[in-house]
């Protein structure tokens, strides 16, 4: 009788970055994998992202960023989530993020970073394996 639980994901574009091809392709792939995907469009501040994540009660936040501002913006997101007591949300990122920056981001609570050339199924599998429902 009970409907199967759906994984809910927020795909967000932090900062002024206008590269949305990857974000939209990933959003569609997650939908086609049976997830409910909230997309909020361009120019999102960390505050807006966290507020949307909370109101939508998502299990995953996927941040797509190709503008080089990741070190400034992504840790802000996890910091605000922590403040809201929402650390249980899985936060992952994708886009143009140099290898050297990945360890720092992981230290700040970004669970995984997916660069160019990532297969969509890899992202889907990762979420399914790591999401806390």
């Amino acid at each position: 009788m009970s409907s199967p639980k759906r994984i809910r994901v927020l795909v967000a574009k932090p900062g002024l970055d206008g590269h949305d091809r990857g974000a939209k392709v990933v959003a569609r792939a997650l939908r086609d994998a049976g997830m409910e995907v909230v997309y909020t469009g361009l120019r999102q501040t960390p505050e807006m992202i966290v507020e949307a994540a909370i109101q939508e009660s998502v299990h995953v936040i996927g941040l797509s960023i190709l503008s080089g501002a990741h070190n400034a913006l992504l840790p802000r997101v996890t910091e605000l989530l922590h403040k809201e007591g929402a650390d249980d949300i899985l936060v992952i990122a994708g886009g143009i993020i140099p290898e050297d920056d990945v360890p720092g981001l992981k230290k700040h609570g970004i669970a995984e970073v997916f660069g160019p050339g990532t297969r969509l199924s890899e992202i889907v599998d990762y979420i399914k394996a790591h999401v806390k429902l």
Partner: protein
Amino acid sequence: MSGNDDTEKALKQWEEGTVSKTLTKFPEREPKFETISGVPVKRLYTPLDSGCQDYQRSLGFPGEFPFTRGVQTTMYRGRFWTMRQYSGYGTARETNRRFRFLLEQGQTGLSVAFDLPTQVGYDSDHPMAQGEVGKVGVAINSIADMEVLFDSIPLDKVSTSMTINAPAAVLLAMYIAVAEKQGVQMDKLRGTIQNDILKEYVARGTYIYPPKSSMRLITDTFKFCSEKMPLWNTISISGYHIREAGSTAAQELAFTLANGIAYVEAAVKAGLDIDSFASRLSFFFGSHSDFFEEIAKFRAARRLWAKIMKERFKAKDDESCKMRFHTQTAGCTLTAQQPDNNVVRVTLQALQAVLGGTQSLHTNSRDEALSLPTEQSVQIALRTQQIIAHETGVGDTIDPIAGSYYVESLTDETERRAEEYIQKIDLMGGAIAAIEAGFMQREIQDSAYEYQKRVDARKRIVVGVNMFTEKEDREFDYLRVNPDLEKEQVVQLKRLREKRDHGLWKEAMRSLRVAAQGEVNLMPFIISAVKAFATVGEICGVLRQVWGEYKAPDIM
């Protein structure tokens, strides 16, 4: 047409005889072949296919209507295309250094990449600018930065392209003012502002104002330049970003020309005579990875635009019908894996652009998918163009691929597919209506997703990514933008605000606001404002208050 009949018969014999015999022993690689945009590709093209039966009408001669074979009469026999590497990062000082390096290396034009805050009309100290200053382009706040950017570069000698859209009028005003300081009058200035807001809504994302006000600002620049800057390209109507966002070749062509039609309509509606501004419209396309399809696209683009100008807009001057365009190799085909392979991709794509008759060219660097290009990488990219120009001989005769049965047929097919889209957009009420309804965006997204799925399923091979991969990627040095530059830039900005003549600034801002509320041409007001050291953020801020901001439709 007995010649055709003979060929038809012979072709049939070949298919049924030689071919089918071979196929039983050696089946072909694929059950069917198609271009990267999904146009079916036949085994063989013959005179039966090429649509250029009517040579004069469909091809003609270089420099003459319909310009299929080129817009200049002697093309590269006269002068090579302009080699123009898009660059900019950090502060004006650093970018100025990169510009001078490139000019020393034999580059023949400049192309400015601005940082994102500048492109969306925020100063370096705006809260939204945090972490973005100088990251992916140069930060320009005021005329002071602009002066440093072009320090020791004589503006009467170079042509400068500026990739700036919503704030295009502001940056043009700054360019004019800096040139004036150098003693160069604006009628001597050569260059381009991108100024193409419609594709920002569709594919690039640095929009500020809603369409109506944006279009007014654009027609203001058209009008201003048609009177005062005869050598300046007032717009670069861009398909590149549409293609990079994932479109097919036909969509790139169609949406670009549909946007072009909207600009021309707006200008005509604003009272401009078509032949007074049309020759200053320029275009910008991508050169993607399907070799022949791209060459065909460039040729189709020229022919289709010429027809549109003549038939739809009744242009009398042939100059108005010439589509001049810049080309950039396709960044989205370049991979983070095995980055040196990108040099080869770029070489082929650059060659396509040249065979397609481009007026200027940017070749991407091998580190495209890693970071902004290092100096070494950008040098190889520039050398690639120089090798094509000086060593291969491809520029020694005009439109050398013409007459290829395949390319001529593909030229026709691409044109046909684009025209179909343009018709659809006409029915929707034109490009602006189609964009507000999310039509172009949806089409592009569909294509992008389709493409990604094909790559994931290895139906489309990307060397180094889904075939011929290596376990470990080799170390590759990439460009890092110093994060401290942001602080430095903000300090400079503060100092400027304190130093400038406040009364002069205030008056300029007031007049600008009043002008924006009314209907006069804004260019003179913007020029006064930048001369009074008003910043990009302040000027765009006033216009934001008067006009509001664009809200993207939900096209998911």
